[in-house]
């Protein structure tokens, strides 16, 4: 077989790694597309500055797929050493003690914990113990097309601050062709139904003063008036014709990129990609508020598996600590749009330089105080699919908002009840 060149090269590479590196760590992640080069760069820099540790970074699909792969890997005892997990998925693995409790390492460096942004830190603490370090945290922001704002006679530097303003602007930004067909929509509040389902809808409920679960996570509250109200409002955007009713999320993003939709919620982790690839001027703003000002906190963290040797644990800790240090979290922020996770980074001089270069990155940092982590439990993926289906039933006019959320809450309650009995 004529792959000798490649094989020799790979073998040499492996030999070299084994000869010079004492500890080899396998690191699974979900950073694809534009985020992957930035991550690879960080990893290779870590390797060159840490001659006794060698980290191999492997992309394993999106967050949900990584969970599946990791579950399967545990069955076959073929686990990696470090894994990037969505903060919402940590519990799936801590429930069976598959992730390393980081308390020991944290207590060795007390200054570390206090330097992480408090609300980010909370997302990795489960039952009082930290199981990961926040790494790529994002919040949901409003992306808008400044060119279209200008064309519609709106001030491109004054994005909507409330739902009402957003609706008014969206109406002005909706353009009809002479034959009555809509050729440009003002708004598309798309909600994902697959990986991180229901993500974009949660802040609407919160902004309307509602909650998705009660505080002990034993009851689903989407059948309450606040949540139903949010759903009604969301539906009205389609009914008024300012938002396209029959588009998948992906098609909506596509249309937004092509300049056929003026506004929509997107994760801050995509800001840099958008800046580099959009042919028009991008504006980024805090989500418009209603009764409350709030946005969703999402993203991933770096965790160490509990079944690896103490020596590897030390090395892995070194790695995840390094990945989240002030300098690297800023690099990561500048190249992706994921938020800096350290207070020292937020207060640094460099961040001002970054804002000068990419002013659109700044609003995401300003949104941090308003960002709320998503409620989580072990069955969260299934529950979110149920909630997503409920709003889809409303969008496609199969059910009224009241009925859809009432039915969904019933279904979710059943799952929560089963979970409690386990």
């Amino acid at each position, binding site marked *: *077989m004529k*792959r000798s060149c*490649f094989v020799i090269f*790979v073998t040499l590479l492996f030999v070299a790694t084994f000869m010079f590196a004492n500890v080899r760590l396998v690191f*699974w992640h979900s950073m*694809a*597309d*534009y985020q992957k080069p930035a991550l690879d760069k960080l990893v290779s820099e870590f390797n060159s500055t840490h001659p006794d540790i060698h980290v191999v970074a*492997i*992309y*394993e*699909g*999106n967050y949900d*797929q990584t969970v599946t*792969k990791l579950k*399967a*890997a545990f*069955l*076959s*005892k*073929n686990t990696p050493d470090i894994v990037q997990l969505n903060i919402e998925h940590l519990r799936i693995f801590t429930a069976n003690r598959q992730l390393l409790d980081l308390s020991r390492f944290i207590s060795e460096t007390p200054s570390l914990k206090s330097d992480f942004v408090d609300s980010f830190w909370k997302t990795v603490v489960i039952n009082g113990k930290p199981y990961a370090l926040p790494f790529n945290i994002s919040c949901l922001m409003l992306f808008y097309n400044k060119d279209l704002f200008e064309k519609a006679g709106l001030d491109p530097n004054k994005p909507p601050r409330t739902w009402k303003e957003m609706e008014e602007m969206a109406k002005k930004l909706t353009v009809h062709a002479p034959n009555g067909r809509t050729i440009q929509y003002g708004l598309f509040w798309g909600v994902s139904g697959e990986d991180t389902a229901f993500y974009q809808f949660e802040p609407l409920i919160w902004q309307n003063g509602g909650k998705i679960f009660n505080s002990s996570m034993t009851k689903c509250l989407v059948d309450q008036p606040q949540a139903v109200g949010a759903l009604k409002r969301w539906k009205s955007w389609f009914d008024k014709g300012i938002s396209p009713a029959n588009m998948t999320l*992906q098609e909506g*993003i*596509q249309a937004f*990129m*092509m300049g056929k939709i003026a506004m929509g919620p997107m994760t801050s982790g995509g800001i840099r*990609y958008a800046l580099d690839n959009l*042919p028009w001027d991008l504006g980024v703003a805090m989500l418009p508020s209603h009764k409350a000002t709030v946005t969703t906190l999402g993203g991933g963290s770096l965790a160490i598996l509990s079944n690896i040797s103490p020596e590897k644990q030390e090395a892995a800790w070194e790695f995840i600590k390094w990945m989240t240090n002030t300098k690297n979290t800023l690099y990561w922020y500048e190249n992706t749009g994921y938020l800096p996770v350290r207070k020292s980074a937020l207060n640094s001089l460099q961040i001002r330089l970054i804002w000068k270069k990419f002013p659109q990155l700044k609003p995401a940092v300003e949104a941090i105080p308003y960002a709320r982590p998503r409620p989580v439990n072990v069955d969260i993926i299934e529950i979110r699919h149920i909630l997503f289906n409920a709003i889809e039933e409303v969008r496609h006019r199969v059910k009224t908002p009241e009925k859809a959320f009432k039915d969904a809450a019933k279904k979710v309650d059943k799952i929560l009840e089963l979970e409690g009995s386990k």
Partner: protein
Amino acid sequence: MSKRKGIISVLKHSVLIIGASFMLFPFFWSVSTSFKGLKEIFRNPFSFVPLHPTFGNYVALFNEIPFARYLLNSFIVASLTTLLQIVTAMLSAYAFSRLKFKGRDLIFYAFLATMMIPGQLLMIPQYLVVARFGWINSYQGLIIPYAATALTTFFLRQFFLTIPKDLEDVAVIDGCNSFQVLVKIFLPISKPAISTIAVFSFMWSWNSYFWPLLVVNVPEMRTVQLGLAMFRTEGGMQWGQFMAGTVIATLPILIAYFFAQKHFIKSITLTGLK
């Protein structure tokens, strides 16, 4: 009369050409898109032929993703799987069609029944078995579970049943044992059927997706379909690159088919598939 014949022939051809364009259009459209730059796709996605043809998508594809490696993996896995399936099917089909042994029919029907099991049902236990053998991330793990299938056995058995007994009787008188009969008599006669199995096994293996997804978690071992699907989930709107990927993933199997198609169509005719 001849004029009428001419009209009928034209009519026939036009219907067939309409059918053929329906069959060909998705291929054509994928290939065309794969040579368009992002800008052209955004600005004018509908020109049938790329106005500014570019290899950019292919270059990016091979730069960003080790597609060459994926192709090689798929090739190794598909060829070995095919080879093993032919060998195992030859042996068992011979036994089921010519040898008499206890429980033969029972075993045969038990094998047949496995065709009706949804693949996804077995994946997790299969995965556990492969893990126990230490075959995660290995060619063995990708190949051995599919080294023998009920379908190929069934197919070849049906073919063997149509081979007249006299042929082998002569060979037996000449002192051949069963194995020699199989190699010297059955193998040459069954070439068309075997090439059918070869095409189908290769195609099936080349196109399989779920099993590799589960068994492989290092990039060096990924197959083309896995690379393609992962590329898709990585998001973004790189339609030009997606289409370049589908072209690359499809081309080898199409080439293989073009070379084997004569055998293929002939063998279906021969077996009659009764």
